[in-house]
């Protein structure tokens, strides 16, 4: 591909370039009215031109911020690119955020213009209008339910498009001049961090800092115009934005937008993406669904599944990496490929996947191996909002379950004495918006970004992340305590959905557990154990026993790792409710807010460190029919067996 990065240094320039050189190729598809509707690069570029002229007519000017709230839709991305054409800065916001969470970004960046997908988002923006006096115009896409909204701020997308078409016809040169004014060093977009810690920060990225890493990674994986990706994660998350914007704009591949969030699985089967991203949680849900359906097979089918999965487990990964495998095993694998792995990949919609990534949190080794063994080239990568995602990628043929691979071209890594990872790369963010203090804390004078992650590089040059630096603490006796490392080990058991470990400056480690209602529910059904809901299930002695076994296996494992052998889990309880982002216990990307959970349930923590066998809890709960009531019960606390450290030797 003979593309000159030098001249095509912004998103709009790339878009117009694709419209010229591959105008008839699909740029974006959306399933609408039951059919995949296609927009070619030329059509997409025209749409962007008209919307841009429409926005210019409304008064959107260079350097202004533009909020976008909605799901992955062609019009969402067209509006985003249109804002960039004018030199305005798109700020995608999470579509499942509640109204009050949206107020901060809009106030912070004095946003005047917004794009909302539908009535739900319009309602939220109108709700916060009094707190956001700067907000002037809200453009909405789907008019359903909005017929009687008379607010002067509202502009239907179709009207914007019409006005833009008219403007463009009158003065076509205007837009070309505006696009030509942009350069790689200009701000391209701003992403608000999910706010694991405190107030969200606006991460400012330039065109270059998004496009350069996107290009490097695309070249590493050999992505081109024939590739297809399914855009199903929130576009406010930088990862989705890079996959469905930056990389598509760099390579010219096609973005497919699913019909609705409930139809993602079916849409994925239909479209058959070649490039795929899924956080470990999604991969886990898929595997759980497969396992549950296999459990319902007749005994012969279950046996065959077990047998061929064992074959895949032994040799699947090696075959994928092109390593030598005995001929007998290879033949068995091909047989399995014919009857099991191929059809299974098809059911998952992954038949055509060339490159699949997972990131965001640690992935269980069994889970990771499952996908690779059935022939899906799933790899881990490491990155963050501040680094435009791509920092480390596992290259084909060098995939290890417990590392995230070596640094990609152009990225430098180094570590502080506290083991904190520092990064310098072309993808580094420019600054935190209107927050010079946070910027200087995160990015030092020499341009090193302090990730806050603790880790090290292994002898093969692969990065291994253990935890957040600030969470890595010490037990009272001074030994290392890495809570996330423990929690991940626990979460790899299918019956445990979430775990929260405590132990910093204490004499031993204790844990809260959230069971997985699907997996444990299934387990209970198989044992004819009736239960009424999560709370009931979580309080059963049998379930405590099940969880205790998991914890003891983790403890046995930890005993084999001398550095952290002391952080074996001594006591635990199963929480009476699932941790929930709406209650502030998880972030929107579903990471546990350990400190907030610890404060909210401080009486439970205190009980874990006392000698008591149970603790009384009272909480307001909301029933599914809308009523709410007070839940009050005694939570049990149980001990788990700990093992003597096996010095210098790893447990099996």
């Amino acid at each position, binding site marked *: 591909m003979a593309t000159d990065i030098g001249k095509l240094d912004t998103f709009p320039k790339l878009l117009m370039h694709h419209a010229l050189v591959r105008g008839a190729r699909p740029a974006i598809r959306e399933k*609408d*009215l*039951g*059919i995949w509707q296609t927009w070619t690069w030329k059509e997409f570029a025209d749409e962007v031109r008209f919307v841009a002229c429409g926005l210019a007519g409304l008064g959107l000017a260079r350097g202004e911020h533009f909020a976008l709230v909605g799901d992955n839709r062609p019009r969402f991305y067209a509006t985003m690119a249109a804002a960039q054409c004018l030199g305005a800065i798109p700020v995608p916001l999470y579509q499942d955020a509640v109204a009050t969470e949206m107020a901060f970004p809009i106030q912070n960046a004095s946003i005047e213009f917004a794009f909302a997908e539908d009535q739900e988002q319009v309602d939220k923006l109108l709700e916060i209008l009094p707190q956001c006096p700067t907000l002037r115009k809200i453009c909405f896409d789907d008019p*359903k*339910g909005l*017929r*009687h909204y008379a607010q002067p701020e509202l502009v239907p997308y179709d009207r914007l498009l019409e006005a833009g078409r008219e403007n463009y016809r009158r003065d076509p040169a205007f837009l070309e001049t505006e696009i030509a004014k942009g350069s790689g060093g200009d701000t391209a977009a701003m992403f608000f961090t999910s706010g694991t810690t405190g107030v969200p920060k606006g991460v400012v990225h330039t065109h270059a800092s998004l496009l350069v890493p996107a290009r490097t990674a695309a070249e590493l994986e050999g992505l081109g115009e024939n590739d297809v990706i399914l855009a199903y994660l929130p576009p406010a998350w930088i990862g989705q934005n890079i996959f469905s914007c930056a990389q598509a704009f760099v390579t010219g591949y096609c973005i497919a937008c699913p*019909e*609705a969030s*409930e*139809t993602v699985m*079916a849409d994925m089967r239909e479209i058959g993406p070649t490039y795929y991203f899924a956080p470990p949680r999604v991969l886990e849900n898929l595997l759980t669904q497969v396992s549950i359906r296999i459990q319902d097979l007749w005994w012969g089918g279950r046996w065959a599944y077990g047998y061929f999965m064992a074959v895949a487990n032994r040799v699947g990964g090696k075959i994928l990496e092109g390593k030598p495998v005995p001929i007998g095993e290879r033949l068995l694998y091909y047989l399995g490929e014919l009857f099991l792995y191929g059809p299974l990949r098809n059911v998952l919609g992954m038949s055509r996947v060339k490159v699949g990534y997972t990131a965001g949190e640690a992935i269980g080794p069994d889970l990771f191996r499952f996908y690779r063994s059935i022939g899906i080239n799933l790899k881990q990568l490491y990155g963050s909002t501040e680094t435009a995602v791509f920092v480390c990628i596992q290259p084909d043929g060098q995939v290890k379950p417990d590392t995230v691979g070596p640094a990609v071209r152009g990225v430098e890594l180094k570590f502080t004495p506290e083991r904190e990872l520092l990064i310098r790369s072309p993808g580094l963010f420019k600054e935190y918006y209107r927050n010079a203090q946070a910027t200087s804390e995160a990015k030092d004078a020499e341009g090193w970004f302090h990730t806050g992650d603790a880790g090290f590089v292994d002898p093969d040059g692969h990065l291994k992340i253990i935890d957040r630096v600030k969470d890595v603490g010490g037990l009272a006796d001074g030994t290392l305590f890495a809570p996330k490392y423990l929690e991940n080990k626990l979460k790899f058991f299918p019956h445990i959905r979430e775990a929260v470990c405590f132990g910093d400056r204490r004499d031993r480690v204790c844990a809260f557990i959230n069971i997985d209602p699907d997996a444990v529910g299934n387990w209970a059904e198989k044992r004819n154990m009736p239960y009424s809901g999560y709370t009931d299930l979580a309080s059963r002695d049998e379930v405590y026993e099940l969880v205790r076994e998991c914890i003891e296996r983790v403890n046995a494992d930890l005993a084999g790792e001398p550095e952290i052998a002391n952080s074996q889990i001594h006591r635990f309880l199963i929480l009476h409710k699932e941790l929930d982002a709406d209650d502030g216990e998880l972030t929107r990307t579903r990471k546990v807010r350990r400190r907030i959970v610890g404060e909210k349930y401080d009486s439970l923590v205190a009980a874990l460190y006392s000698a008591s066998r149970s603790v009384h809890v009272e909480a307001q709960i909301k029933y*599914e*029919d*809308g009523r709410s009531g007070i839940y009050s019960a005694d939570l049990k606390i149980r001990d788990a067996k700990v093992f003597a450290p096996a010095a210098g030797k790893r447990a099996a």
Partner: protein
Amino acid sequence: MSGRPVGEVTLSVEAVSLAFGGVKALSEVSFDVREHEVRAIIGPNGAGKSSMLNVLNGVYHPQQGKIRFQGREFEDMDSHEAAAMGIARTFQNIALFKGMTVLDNIMTGRNLKMHCNFLQQALWIGPARREELEHRRAVEEIIDFLEIQHVRKTPVGRLPYGLQKRVELGRALAAEPKVLLLDEPMAGMNLEEKQDMCRFVLDVNDHFGTTIVLIEHDMGVVMDISDRVVVLDYGRKIADGSPSEVRGNQKVIDAYLGVAHSA
């Protein structure tokens, strides 16, 4: 309540009486329905509500009285004729084809709009293909409107109750009715499903301008979404008016709560 301005009277019944042998289901009931309004029929069990609806779309034929629809006068309605003139309905007990998909069920609602003959459709000749595409598009728009894309290809029998009700509404809508008769659309639903259904009923009324006549037991729903309410008791009309008028009517209170009999 409805979004569009309520217009002229479009459908009226005048002194309708219906009897099954010696049982008088309706006696001399008169009321009217205006264009674009949401009209509720309420009453205790056995009051004759469903019979009234069945008279309106021609399932039952009254012995006395007249029905006036869009300026035309009928002694009784013929159900096929009623459908052709733009009266569609849903049923108290869901009456869908359980083994067929959601898509196909809603497609059956387009039946009256199909003009190709059997042979053309079977051989896919003449205007059959174009017609099929048009109908499919109309059905897909309804699927989009009712937010049931995720179950498009699922056999109806496998869907939960609330969704089946929604599919039935979809099938009625597929006929592009002027008047939609809903027989207890919220019966047996939980709170959330009821809220959804209310929203869809109001959206239909607003978006397509459809006139809606509904029977409902949930007084909260009736009071919230209807423009006018007619109350039946033992086959007679005992009240007619806005929700607040009806709520304060002593006869209605007596019919629902019972009256103390003095010795």
